[in-house]
């Protein structure tokens, strides 16, 4: 990538900061305006990464830099009715709903009545106005660090979801968070900054549902910071199924305190470039971390998953299973880092990455990175890349099942151990449905009648 493109893109976003600052002139100083100033400095120091940068070797961001995305706060809102957003939701079960259109909270499209006592689900912007003290200590822990995209996120951060569970709060149903991104007039930059705080002994289940609309390209550049208290439990479902030509970059940082359990599903379906940086710091003893990933790409799509599990304390367990299905000319990247710090004895860390290539031109780069500085640990990793098993296909066809359906059965079988691990039964079949729809495969359903 040439330096020019990075500079031009930086100029574009810097120029918009001034417009944004003027627009927000009336508002008093708050945590976000402080963060904006700080991140602007960081942004100026950094460059957009190129292929020489080890962490971005396989992810070419030039397609993103060629667009002049306009921060969504500067454009007219697209209006939706509650009826219109139904088709974007995962359904068949009870949930609380919070909706963001281009990263901005839509109260009319949310259903947050009757939240249990001690649970806050809401908009960052609103909470900053009403009760900034609630998030003061957590808002800037990670998200502006690391790379230029995160700095960009902080500069244009205006809204996002905030979930705070007081200690001992156990959620009665999942929270579905809908990010609906897109536009028919402008190319939009969506820049939510999101926060989950689960205090000691609380239990949460969140489904973060990324969808696209409209015919213009857009860039979803998001961060999520997750704080998990002692003995707290979070089930985290990220399901990303956006417009085919969209860009999606997200960094999710999690800190786990002692005896907490974090289970994350990272499901990627859409977008011309999807990049996930998923980091967990195990900051207390006896924690459990489960990472499940499933990514599906076709045409010229690119999906990168960079995961990092930091075993900072002894007696923690992490288990990671990522599966990729790559068709046409698509490109997948899995980079899984496990870091075991000195003194983090009795660590158990497992990692597995499997991919199937459905076409000759599909490509996967896979790189496990184990860095272990303790001597009493169990760490294993495995990677496998292959095609659909021909012997298995023959077996199914020999029972009279047509070839296309046989392939569908095998794809379903491949994705099975990730999908089956989900705890929300109704999600499973909806995820399977998206897989078949995307691959233009005949659907194979497992329900008998």
């Amino acid at each position: 990538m040439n330096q020019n493109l990075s500079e031009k893109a930086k100029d574009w976003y810097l120029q918009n900061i001034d417009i944004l600052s003027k627009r927000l002139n009336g508002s008093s100083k708050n945590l976000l305006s402080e963060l904006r100033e700080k991140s602007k400095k960081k942004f100026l120091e950094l460059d957009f990464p190129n292929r020489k940068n080890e962490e971005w070797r396989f992810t070419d961001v030039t397609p993103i830099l060629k667009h002049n995305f306009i921060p969504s706060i500067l454009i007219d809102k697209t209006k939706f009715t509650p009826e219109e957003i139904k088709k974007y939701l995962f359904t068949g079960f009870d949930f609380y709903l919070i909706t963001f259109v281009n990263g901005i909270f839509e109260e009319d499209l949310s259903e947050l009545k009757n939240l249990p006592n001690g649970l806050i689900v809401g908009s960052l912007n609103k909470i900053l106005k009403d009760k900034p003290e609630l998030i003061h200590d957590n808002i800037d822990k990670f998200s502006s660090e690391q790379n230029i995209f995160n700095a960009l996120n902080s500069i244009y951060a205006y809204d996002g979801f905030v979930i705070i569970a007081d200690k001992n709060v156990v959620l009665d149903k999942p929270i579905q968070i809908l990010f609906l991104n897109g536009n028919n007039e402008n190319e939009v930059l969506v820049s939510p900054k999101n926060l989950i705080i689960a205090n000691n002994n609380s239990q949460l289940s969140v489904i973060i549902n990324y969808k696209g609309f409209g015919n213009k390209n857009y860039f979803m550049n998001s961060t999520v910071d997750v704080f998990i208290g002692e003995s707290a439990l979070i089930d985290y479902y990220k399901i990303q199924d956006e417009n085919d030509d969209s860009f999606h970059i997200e960094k999710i940082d999690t800190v786990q305190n002692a005896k907490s359990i974090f289970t994350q599903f990272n499901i990627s379906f859409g977008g011309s470039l999807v990049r996930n940086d998923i980091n967990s710091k195990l900051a207390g003893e006896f924690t459990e971390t489960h990472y499940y990933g499933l990514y599906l790409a076709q045409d010229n799509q690119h999906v990168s998953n960079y995961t990092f599990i930091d075993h900072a304390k002894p007696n923690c367990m992490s288990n990671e299973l990522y599966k990729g299905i790559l068709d046409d000319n698509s490109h997948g990247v899995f980079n899984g880092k496990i870091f075991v710090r000195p003194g983090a004895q009795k660590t158990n860390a497992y990692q597995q990455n499997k991919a199937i290539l459905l076409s000759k031109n599909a490509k996967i780069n896979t790189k496990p990175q184990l860095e272990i500085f303790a001597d009493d640990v169990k760490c294993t990793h495995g990677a496998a890349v292959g095609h659909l098993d021909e012997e298995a296909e023959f077996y199914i066809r020999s029972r009279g099942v047509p070839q296309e359906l046989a392939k569908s059965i095998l794809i379903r079988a491949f994705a099975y151990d990730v999908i089956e691990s989900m705890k929300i039964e109704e999600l499973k079949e909806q995820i399977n449905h998206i897989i078949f729809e995307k691959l233009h495969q005949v659907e194979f359903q497992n329900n008998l009648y």
Partner: protein
Amino acid sequence: MLIIKNLHANVEGKEILKGINLEVKAGEIHAIMGPNGSGKSTLANVLAGNKGYEVTEGEIWFEGKNLLELEPEERAREGVFLAFQYPIEIPGVSNATFLKTAINEKRKHIGLPELTPKEFLDLMKEKSKILGMDDSLISRSVNVGFSGGEKKRNEIFQLLMLNPKLAILDETDSGLDIDALKIVANGVNVFHNDENAVIVVTHYQRLLNYIVPDYVHVLSKGKIVKSGGKELALELEEKGYDWITSDELESQNA
């Protein structure tokens, strides 16, 4: 029902079948025996249409149709069934769903409506009873976590459910204890009638005590070197394969 003429087939470029001739009529049970590497499993796989095996010469006619022109699923719908030596595991797809899909594909092919849920359940109950199968095996994923014996039994369950015209059993006896062997053999005998046929591919005579063949063929180095009645299997059990394969070589050389 089945006519095989001068069949030659390669696996990975190496000729394994070197001119097989065989005719199987409705109502018959044929046993194909032979030492390891003689081409028994190759023959079974070629009949079912496995693309890993390349037919280089010869013909296979099944009920008047040229089998070599048909895809594996088309052969299945015409009534060919292969019980696999190593059945495949399919995680996430239950035995019941798998069979319902297979049966309805076949019914669609012959212009019949799909089975109603009740018809399908009744059929499953009837057939699984014959094999003494536990209900849990039916709702579990196809062959996943099944023991060797359970997998073989499941193959015969599929055979009974799909009710083909020609059943080819590829080493179905391998890995079975005597009780399982009897159950599996009983399943095949329940299936067998005057209108269908069975080809039993096996290394050992043991299974043939329970599935009694009308004809026994000995395969050696890709050819049928001897055919006879069921006594031939007993003779093989007693004397091994050497006497036939060497006899045959001598007569060829003479």
